[in-house]
């Protein structure tokens, strides 16, 4: 489980991401690494035409970490964020795209059919909170999706990396997106790992019958429901292998593989005892 409290619980985004927090966020190399990785995955899911410059929308662009990835790939982008401190850092960092101070829940203020795609990294869960008395999260989420749908080109995609607090929240986001006209669903990368698990909401604008992109870290043969039955059956048998035995090592390796970690393949030497030395 999470050891730290979720940042959404500390307060609204524009207050939580003050100067200090924004600076922390942008100088922390681990943050940068994770953000970059997730952005690259989101761009992959966007499925843009190769080698052509596109105009993208970055929702919750923050200090422009994700935007820099877009620039590196030759795309232009416009970013929206609610935190002025974050945008000020983006200015200091000299990012390529234009940035706008705005609240996603108030709607996307762009002309219809403007963008070739939209990405959003770790931002959407903030919309699920009511930070003011007048806020109604469901209404805000719907209004956001509705206006986003309008501002995107026909046939484009919007990819949201989210940290939902609970399954209900994800369900709410998906159902509101579908209500607003989007098609699509959820892609979960590395579902068996607590750390590497990443949830992407993939929304398609105006096209139906698209097969969902494949998630990473899963086998085709075993989807999640199968996984659960397997686990249950193992509990019933409850035959744990002897520690340090070859079977035990194999099981451990398999588990690590499912979590998307780099695991050495087994050889005839795996799990063997060393010769006694004099």
């Amino acid at each position, binding site marked *: 489980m999470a050891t730290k409290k979720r940042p959404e619980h500390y307060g609204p985004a524009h207050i939580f991401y003050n100067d200090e927090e924004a600076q922390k966020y942008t100088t922390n190399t681990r943050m940068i690494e994770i953000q970059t990785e997730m952005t690259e995955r989101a761009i992959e899911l966007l499925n843009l035409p190769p080698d052509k410059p596109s105009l993208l929308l970055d929702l919750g662009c923050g200090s422009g970490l994700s935007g820099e990835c877009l620039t590196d790939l030759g795309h232009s982008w416009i970013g*929206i964020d609610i935190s*002025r401190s974050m945008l000020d850092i983006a200015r200091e960092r000299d990012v390529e795209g234009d940035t*706008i*101070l705005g609240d996603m829940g108030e*709607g996307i*203020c762009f*002309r219809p059919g403007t963008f070739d795609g939209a990405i959003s990294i770790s931002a959407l869960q903030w919309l699920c909170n009511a930070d003011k008395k007048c806020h109604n999260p469901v209404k805000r989420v719907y209004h956001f999706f509705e206006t986003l749908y309008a501002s995107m080109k026909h046939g484009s995609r919007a990819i949201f990396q989210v940290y939902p607090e609970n399954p209900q929240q994800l369900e709410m986001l998906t159902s509101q997106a579908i209500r607003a006209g989007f098609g699509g669903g959820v892609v979960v990368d590395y579902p068996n790992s607590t750390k590497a698990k990443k949830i992407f909401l993939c929304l398609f604008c105006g096209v139906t019958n698209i097969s969902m992109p494949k998630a990473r870290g899963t086998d085709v043969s075993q989807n999640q429901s199968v996984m659960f039955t397997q686990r249950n059956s193992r509990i019933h048998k409850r035959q744990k292998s002897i520690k340090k035995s070859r079977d035990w090592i194999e099981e451990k390796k398999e588990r690590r593989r499912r979590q998307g970690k780099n695991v050495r393949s087994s050889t005839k030497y795996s799990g063997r005892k060393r010769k006694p030395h004099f």
Partner: protein
Amino acid sequence: MRVTRFLKMRLMTHNMLTSHVKGVTNGYPLILEATETNEKEIDFNPEFIAKMIPRIEWSALVNAMEKLGKADLIPEEVADEYENDEDFLHKAHHALLEIDVIKGNLVCPQSGRKFPISNGIPNMLLNEDEV
């Protein structure tokens, strides 16, 4: 040492922004009131510009350029075969990407609501009663 360039709002972004105040039916184009602008060179990418032209409301761009007193830098109409018209694409590139608004206001044409631009960042946040 890194040279810090001001973050900017380019005219391309202005061309795509609309007013989203509650009750406004025709919030486009936003009237541009610039008090501080900046120009800088950006690499010319004809493919990107040609792709953007159909999405640009040309009359709004001409209007914005007039407001900045640069109407002579831009043709009044989109050229017929703009994909191959190098001169036209260069002019469009300059108008769309190389002119930054740093300070000023965006004014909603219907309600007159002002969205201030400071440091090149337009503030599109609404008040509670405008959502």
